[in-house]
């Protein structure tokens, strides 16, 4: 029969039992001498009360000391262990032991100031210490989805102890079913088979998500056939429930109401086994590293279990890639209390609108409609409207996109326009009565996606039946980034556009790279795009005023124009960086001219090895496998100059595996049944594989403390 303590470190509290003695000694004063006449009465009174007072003092001192000592002992959770026959009794004799140490993310859960992995590691080391000299063993560290390597059982205890001691906390999910299968298979090697018994010890937290109980239970391959091992499941949580709360989801959607760079950040918080709480602080942080700041503080009302959603609005200061992090107050498993997301905030697009044929009547003026569309609420586009004369004086390099409306011909600006596009600028050209196709073809040769031919009139507007005869948009390329926003009924706004007149185009050069975004129902090109150098040119065959087409009054006009401007400026190229999960391989799409130098993890450590190894996907894109949650940065090398830099556009967020956050635990009986029943398997909530019965003493000590407290009260009374 042994006395042991669940929290032996708390035995320091026993020092509190010395407090009454210390107080007694501290306050013990030399008596004051007082001459007193009636000393006979004092002597007599003292004589009569001395014994009673002495007894009372001793009892009081004992009660106080007992109160503090019992409380301190109770906190250390003492228990009396009485040896008992193991439930999982096999044949007597030495056993080959395979130890599986769970290092999954949920093992970072903190109980009593220590992580579950610390306890599991201790349990595993204790098992190793208890092995006899003729008992071979092997250790399998189980972290991540990959099938772990299980060495044959051997006798190098030092190496095994080092393996256990060096096992690091993982952040990925572990598949314990795979791990125990690999470990049990290792017990089939000759050294293990030479022993009388085969034993599997699993040091884990018993979370349900780590096990696949629909898979067959592991068996040891022996010459006599498959044999089930004895199984000891060492519960690192010591039978306690693992309540957890985690940020389970984070999405960012543009929110025009929040500002020109406004976003609506949707947060989902899950809880399991927690107590319901009100006014839980939720922080939205923006930025990374030293630039990180808290942008929004909010309060959540969280139920005991289930999901709570919250929407936060934030207006980013500027366009470009931005990192948002949503964080709850840390709990016992802090790794999943914050999620980050990389948001590609649209950059401001500066557009030069050239009105080739200004009209005094506003509703006949093409630029009027276009400017109104581009300056819509939350639009990232900043238009500047000029006429043909103004265009001649304009400096195109100051703009991202040039939109030419009903311009007779580019004239002397043609060369500058070509250079502008070649250098990455965007050009949008819309037709009109003033457009001179021949001059365009001559002056802007090779710039437009296709040469202009002549104007076709499908119907004379205002004549009977003209509505029916008008051309409609068809064969629309909905997959084009500029038109991808039109989904469902919204597409009708584009499909219903009618054109009475439009410019017919000549067939372009085969290698012109033109992409037709929409045609009219007679097959004529309505909207076409082509790449020129690093820039893009888009041609609309009709007008942006009501003269030739009614697109301006359709609901699709505003979003289409904003998207087209953004697309031509290259703002839509910036991909939304979807967050990944810990342990999931992630290909990195690097821009041309750059190569991967290193990836920088949330811990600030650069990982060059993986990058240098040239792990690549089939397409040739480098692949990284993030091993921890948080924001990962990518350091790229410029192939031309050889210089290295962090590219913010390539940063990506990695989230914890949600299955590891779900800390619901398996019923021990489910696991023991899977391993072959209680005859073979047992779950040890004390972390000790051997069978023993424990008698908890803390409740008795607590009773003693209460009794001492009451006794003290009576004695004082």
């Amino acid at each position: 029969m042994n006395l042991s303590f669940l929290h032996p470190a708390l035995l320091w509290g026993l020092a509190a039992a010395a407090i009454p003695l210390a107080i007694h000694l501290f306050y013990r004063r030399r008596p004051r001498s007082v001459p007193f006449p009636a000393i006979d009465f004092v002597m007599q009174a003292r004589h009569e009360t001395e014994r009673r007072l002495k007894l009372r003092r001793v009892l009081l001192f004992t009660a106080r000391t007992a109160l503090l000592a019992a409380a301190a002992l109770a906190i250390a959770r003492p228990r009396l262990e009485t040896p008992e026959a193991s439930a999982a009794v096999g044949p007597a004799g030495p056993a080959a032991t395979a130890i599986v140490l769970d290092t999954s993310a949920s093992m970072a859960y903190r109980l009593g100031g220590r992580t579950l992995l610390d306890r599991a590691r201790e349990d595993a080391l204790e098992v190793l210490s208890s092995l006899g000299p003729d008992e071979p063993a092997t250790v399998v560290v189980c972290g991540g989805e990959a099938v772990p390597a299980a060495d044959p059982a051997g006798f190098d205890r030092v190496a095994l102890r080092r393996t256990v001691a060096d096992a690091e906390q993982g952040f990925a999910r572990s598949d314990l079913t795979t791990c125990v299968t690999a470990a049990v298979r290792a017990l089939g090697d000759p050294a293990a088979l030479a022993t009388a018994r085969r034993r599997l010890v699993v040091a884990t937290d018993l979370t349900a998500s780590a096990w696949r109980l629909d898979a067959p239970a592991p068996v040891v391959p022996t010459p006599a056939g498959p044999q089930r091992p004895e199984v000891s499941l060492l519960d690192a949580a010591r039978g306690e429930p693992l309540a957890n709360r985690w940020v389970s989801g984070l999405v960012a959607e543009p929110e025009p109401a929040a500002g020109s760079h406004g976003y609506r950040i949707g947060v989902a918080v899950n809880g399991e086994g927690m107590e319901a709480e009100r006014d839980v602080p939720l922080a939205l942080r923006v930025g990374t590293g030293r630039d990180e700041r808290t942008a929004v503080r909010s309060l959540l009302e969280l139920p005991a279990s289930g999901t709570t959603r919250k929407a936060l609005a934030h207006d980013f200061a500027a366009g470009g890639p931005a990192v948002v992090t949503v964080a709850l107050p840390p709990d016992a498993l802090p790794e999943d209390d914050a999620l980050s997301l990389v948001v590609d905030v649209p950059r401001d697009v500066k557009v030069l609108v050239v009105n080739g044929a200004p009209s005094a009547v506003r509703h006949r003026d093409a630029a009027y409609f276009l400017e109104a569309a581009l300056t819509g609420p939350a639009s990232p586009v900043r238009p500047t409207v000029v006429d043909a004369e103004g265009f001649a004086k304009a400096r195109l390099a100051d703009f991202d996109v040039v939109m030419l409306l009903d311009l007779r011909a580019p004239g002397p600006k043609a060369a500058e326009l070509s250079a502008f596009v070649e250098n990455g600028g965007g050009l949008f050209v819309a037709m009109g009565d003033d457009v001179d196709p021949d001059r365009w073809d001559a002056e802007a040769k090779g710039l437009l996606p296709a040469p202009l031919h002549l104007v076709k009139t499908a119907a004379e507007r205002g004549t009977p039946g003209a509505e029916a005869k008008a051309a409609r948009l068809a064969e629309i390329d909905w997959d084009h980034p500029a038109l991808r926003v039109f989904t469902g009924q919204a597409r009708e706004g584009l499909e219903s556009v009618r054109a009475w007149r439009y410019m017919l185009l000549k067939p372009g050069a085969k290698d012109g790279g033109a992409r037709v975004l929409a045609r009219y129902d007679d097959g004529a090109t309505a909207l076409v795009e082509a790449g020129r150098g690093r820039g893009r040119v888009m041609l609309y065959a009709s007008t942006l005023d009501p003269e030739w087409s009614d697109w301006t009054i359709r609901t699709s006009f505003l979003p289409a124009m904003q998207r087209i401007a953004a697309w031509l400026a290259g703002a839509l190229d910036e991909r939304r960086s979807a967050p990944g999960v810990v342990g999931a391989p992630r290909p990195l799409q690097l821009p041309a001219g750059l190569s991967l130098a290193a990836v920088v993890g949330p811990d600030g450590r650069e990982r060059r090895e993986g990058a240098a190894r040239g792990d690549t996907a089939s397409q040739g894109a480098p692949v990284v496998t993030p091993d921890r949650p948080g924001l990962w940065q990518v350091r790229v090398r410029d192939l031309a100059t050889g210089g290295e830099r962090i590219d913010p556009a390539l940063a990506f967020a990695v989230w914890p595996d949600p299955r590891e956050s779900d800390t619901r635990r398996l019923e021990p009986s489910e696991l023991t049944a899977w391993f072959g029943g209680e005859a073979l398997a047992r779950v040890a909530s004390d972390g000790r594989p051997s069978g023993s019965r424990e008698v908890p003493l803390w409740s008795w000590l607590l009773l003693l403390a209460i009794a001492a407290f009451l006794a003290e009260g009576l004695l004082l009374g």
Partner: protein
Amino acid sequence: MTEAGKRLLDPVVLARLAGLRLRVRATAEGVLSGLHRSPHHGQSVEFSEHKEYAPGDELRHVDWKAFGKFDKYYVKRFEQETNLRAWLVVDASGSMGYRGAEDRLTKLGYACTLAGTLAHLLVRQQDAAGLAVFSGKVTNALTPRAEPSQVNAILETLEALQAGGETRVEAAVQFLAERARRRSAVMVFSDLLDRDERVLRLVADLRRRRHEVTVFHLLDPSELDFPFDDPTLFLSMEDARSVEARGRDVRKGYLELLGKWLEDVRRICGESDVDYVRVRTDQPLDEVLVPFLSRRERSAA
């Protein structure tokens, strides 16, 4: 009594007065102004016989009742020997030197003030006042005399007293048994803290010798209330004994024992026909003397 006169009788105020004479004078004046009209006009005499009036006799001694009956003038004659003889017996043992607070009189100081005042009042009404001071034995004694110089002698003796030695009431009783053969008033000023348990029986003996005995039992408030809490080393004031005790632990027992003793003292005095006056040394002196004197006047009448 005026406010100033009352203040003078406060022991705290008296304690600030430097000399016993001053204290006695202040007290005596205060007491006299507190007493009602005295029927004896300061004299303590006993009627002896009538004689027929002759010129030269004092007119105030003419018995007007007799003149009414007999239509002759008779003059009352008094016996001088019937004057009161009083022994002031003062305990000057070590325990009488106690005072529980600095601003109080010691028990001996209080006793001397009482005794001096009474001596003053007695001699003032032509009674004879004597003094016996005792501790382990009788150390000072003055035979009762009615001369004004007797007051000075008594006050001088009292003023020179220092508390010390053990209490031995027996010594005083034996002294009085030898010296006070005539019936006298004996006023004992003591705390009665005599280790001899017969102390009260000895005092009662004086009564049996036909003396009028009054015991002024002087106690300090600290003796009566026992205001000690912390561990204290109590030292005997008359011998080398000492005892260490935590005040709050022994207070209850002490007060019980003291209460029982005081009750016994009062009972035995009552049984022995001894006049008993318990005096707290924080008590104004007129509160002690005026009732005592009034009581004596009533009994004399």
